[in-house]
C-alpha cells in the first residue's frame, strides 16, 4: 500500500490539481453565466431584438471555465497523464497541485462576481441599448483578476516542468 502510494501519489496530486482547476472554475462560470442568463432572458422577453447584445454580456463570465480547462489540459499533458506515462514524484505532484490553485480559486469567485456585474450590465442594455460599449466594460473589469490568476498558473506549471525532483 505504502509502496503503491509512494509510486503514484505524485500523479494523483497533479490529477487533483487539474480536476480542481477544471471543476472549480467551471462551476464558477456556470453560476456566473446562469446568473447573467436569467437577467438576459428577462430582457429578451420584453424586446427580442436585444438578443445579440445581451447574449454577448451573458457569455462574459464563461471564460473562467475555459481558463480552468486550459490549466487542466496543460497539467495533464505535462505530467504525462494524457498521452504519456505518468511518473511524477510526490513533491512535483504537490507543485502541480499548487500551480493549479490560482485559477481554481480565483476562477470560481471571479466568475460569480462577473456574472453579477454582467447581469447589472444587461439591465443597462435593457434601458439604454446604445450604451452597450460601456456596459461591456464593467464585467470585463472583474475578469482581469481571473486572467492574472491564469497567468500565474501558467507560469507556475511551466516552471514546474523545469524543477528537478
Amino acid at each position, binding site marked *: 500500500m505504502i509502496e503503491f502510494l509512494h509510486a503514484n501519489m505524485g500523479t494523483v496530486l497533479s490529477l487533483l490539481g487539474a480536476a480542481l482547476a477544471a471543476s472549480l472554475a467551471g462551476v464558477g462560470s456556470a453560476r456566473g453565466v446562469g446568473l447573467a442568463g436569467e437577467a438576459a432572458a428577462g430582457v429578451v422577453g420584453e424586446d427580442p431584438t436585444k438578443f445579440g447584445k445581451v447574449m454577448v454580456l451573458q457569455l462574459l463570465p464563461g471564460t473562467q471555465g475555459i481558463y480552468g480547462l486550459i490549466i487542466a*489540459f496543460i497539467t495533464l499533458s505535462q505530467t504525462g497523464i494524457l498521452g504519456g506515462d505518468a511518473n511524477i514524484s510526490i513533491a512535483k505532484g504537490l507543485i502541480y497541485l499548487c500551480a493549479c490553485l490560482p485559477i481554481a480559486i480565483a476562477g470560481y469567485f471571479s466568475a460569480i462576481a462577473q456574472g453579477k456585474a454582467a447581469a447589472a450590465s444587461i439591465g443597462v442594455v435593457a434601458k439604454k441599448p446604445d450604451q452597450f460599449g460601456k456596459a461591456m*466594460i464593467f464585467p470585463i473589469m472583474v475578469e482581469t483578476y481571473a486572467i492574472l490568476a491564469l497567468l500565474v498558473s501558467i507560469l507556475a506549471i511551466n516552471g514546474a516542468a523545469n524543477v528537478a525532483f
Partner: protein
Amino acid sequence: MAILAMKRVSIYGLKADSKPILEKIQRAGVVEIQDFVEEDEVFKKVKMPISASEFERNIRDAEAALEILNSYKEEKSGLLSSFKGRDVIEEKDYDTFYKKLAEAKKFVNRILELSRDINEKNGEIIRASQQLDMLVPWESFDMALNSTGTEKTAIFIGALPGEQNLEAIAAGFPEDLLVDVEIISKDKNQTCIMAVALKEDKEQVSSALRAMGFAYPALVVPYTPIEYKERLLAEIERYKEEIAKEEEEILSYNDKRPVIKFMADYQSIRAEKYEVASSLPQSDHAFVLSGYIPEINIKDLEQTLEPYSVIIETEDVGEKEDSPVALKNNAFSSSVQGVVESYALPTKGEIDPSFLISLFYFVFFGFMLSDAAIGILIFVGAGILLLKNKNMEHGLRNNVKLFMCGGLSAIFFGVLFGSYFGDFFQTVSSFFFGKPLVIKPLWLDMATNPMTALTLALIMGIIHIFTGLGANGFQLLKRKKVADFIFDVVVWYVVIGGLLVKCLSMQMIMDILAGGATPPFSAEVGNIGLYATAAGAVVVLFMGGRSSKNWGKRLLKGAYALYGITGYLSDVLSYSRLLALGLATGVISSVANMIGTMFGKGFAGIVIFILVFLIINAVNIGINTLGAYVHTNRLQYVEFFGRFYEGGGRPFEPYSIKTKYYKFKEK
C-alpha cells in the same frame, strides 16, 4: 482624421421656395437644426396646416400592413440578411415611386380592412362553436327549442341543476297537478327536461319548476337542435371559406411590399420635413433656417442651393458653445470609430482618438487571437461579407472591417507564434501519417516560452500607456497649459522612464523576463535612472497638488498624486491578458486535436476527429474572437483613455433622410 470643424449657419430663403429648399437640405443631410434666430415682430414660427400626426398614422398603417403580410408569408431572409443593409433607390426611382403612392395607400387600407374582417369572422366562428357545445345535451330532442306549447298545453324546456331522475322531479310538483316530464339528457351538472302541462296549470307548473331551480336554455331558437346544429356548421363553413378568400387576397398583395415600404419611408421623410418647417421662424415672404454645419460641407450646400434665391451666412462657433461633434477618419482608422463612439465622442479641446486607437487595436486583437488558421477564417469571412453586401449599413460595415483587420493581424501573430488551429498539422501528420510535420514558429512558441511572450506583452503595454500620456501632453499644449504639460506629463515620463532604466539594469529582472540575458544598461546607468525617478517623484510631491494654496493640503495632494505610480504598475500588468488570451486560443484548438485523435485511425476515428475538430473550433472561434474584441476594447477604454480621454461630446444629428427600408443614393 479628426473632429470635423463646425460652423454656425443661417439660411435665408423665400417662402415660395421653402418646399424645394427644405427638401434639398434634407437630402444633403449636413445641417443640424438649432434655433439661433430669436422670434421677433417680423420672424415668427408658424404652425403648418398638415399635422405630423397624419404622417404618423400613415406610417403606422403601412407598418401594420407589412406586419399582416408577414404573418401570412414571412419575408425570405437568409442567415446573413442582417448584413445586407437597405436597398438603394436613385432619385429618378424616387420620383416614379412617388406616383404610386396613392395606390400604395389603397393597398394598405385594403389589407387592414381585410385583416379586420378576418378577425371579426374568426370571432363569429368561435361564437358558433360555443353554441355547438351548448347544443350537445339537447341533441336527442326533436322539437324547436323555442316551443312554448300548443293550443291546450304549455311546454317547458330547460334544465334542472344536478343529476335527477323522474321520481325526484315528479315529487317536486303538487300532487294533483297533471304534468308530463321527459328527461332529454342528464349529467352530473344538469338534467335537461321537457315538461308538458295543461295551459291553465301553466303558472303553477312554472312556480314549481322555479322552486326546483329550473332554468331556460341559453339557446332559444325556432329550430330543433339537429336543425340548428346543421345551420351552425354551415355558418362556420361559410365563414371559413370567406376567410380563406380574404387571406388569398391579402397574399395577392405580397408583391406590393416594396410600394408599402416606400410609403412608410416617404411619410417619415415628409414627417421630418414638416416638423422642421413648422419650427422655422418666418416673415410674410421669407423664412430662416439656422443650425450647425461641418465646415467641409458648406461648399456643397451652397452649390445645391444655387438655383434658389437664398442667403447663406456662416459664423464661427463660440468658445464655450455646446456644438455637436462629428468624426471623420480614413478608411483604416474609421473601422475603430465605432469603438470610440460607443465610449464617448470627444469634447471641445480633445483629439479624436480613432487614429491612435487604430494603431494599437489590431496589434492587441491579433495578439489575443494569435492563431493563423482562425485568423484566415475571420479575415476571409469578413472579406466575403463586405464584398457580397455592398449596401451594408455604415456602422456595421466599419465593425466588419474591424474584424477583417483583426483577422489579418491574428494571421501575423499566429505565424509568429506558430499556431495553426493549435498544433493541428503536427498532430494530424504524426497521428494519421506517422510523420510529424512541424511548422516552426517564426519567433517562439508561446506555450513553451510564456515569459518571453509576457515580456513582449508588457512592452506593448508600456508603449501604449506612454502614447496615451503623450496624447494628454499634446492636448494640454493645444490648450496652452504649459505648467500642466510639464508637471502632469513630462515629469511622469521621467518617473516611469527612470524606473524602467533601473529595472533594465538589474540582473534579477532580466532573469525573470528575458531568460537571463545580460542587462542592456550597466548598474551606473541604472542608478542614474533611479535618481531621475527620485527627482521626478519629489517634483510630483511638491507640484502634484499645485491647485491648492495651503501648503499642508498641497503636499497631501502631491503625495496622493505620487501614489498614482501604482496605477501605472497595475495598468502595465493588465497587458498580461495579451499573453493569457493568446495562449487560450491555441490550447483549446490543441485540446480538440488531442481528443480527436483518441479514437483510432479507422473510418470512425476520422469521422469523430472531424466532428470534434469542427465543434470545438467553432466554439473556440466564437469565444476567443469575442474575448479578443472585448479585452482589446477594455485596454483602450481603461488603460489608454484613462491617460488622456474623457469624452462626452454631443453627437451631430443632422436634419436628413431617415428611412427604415430604403436608402437614398448618396452622391
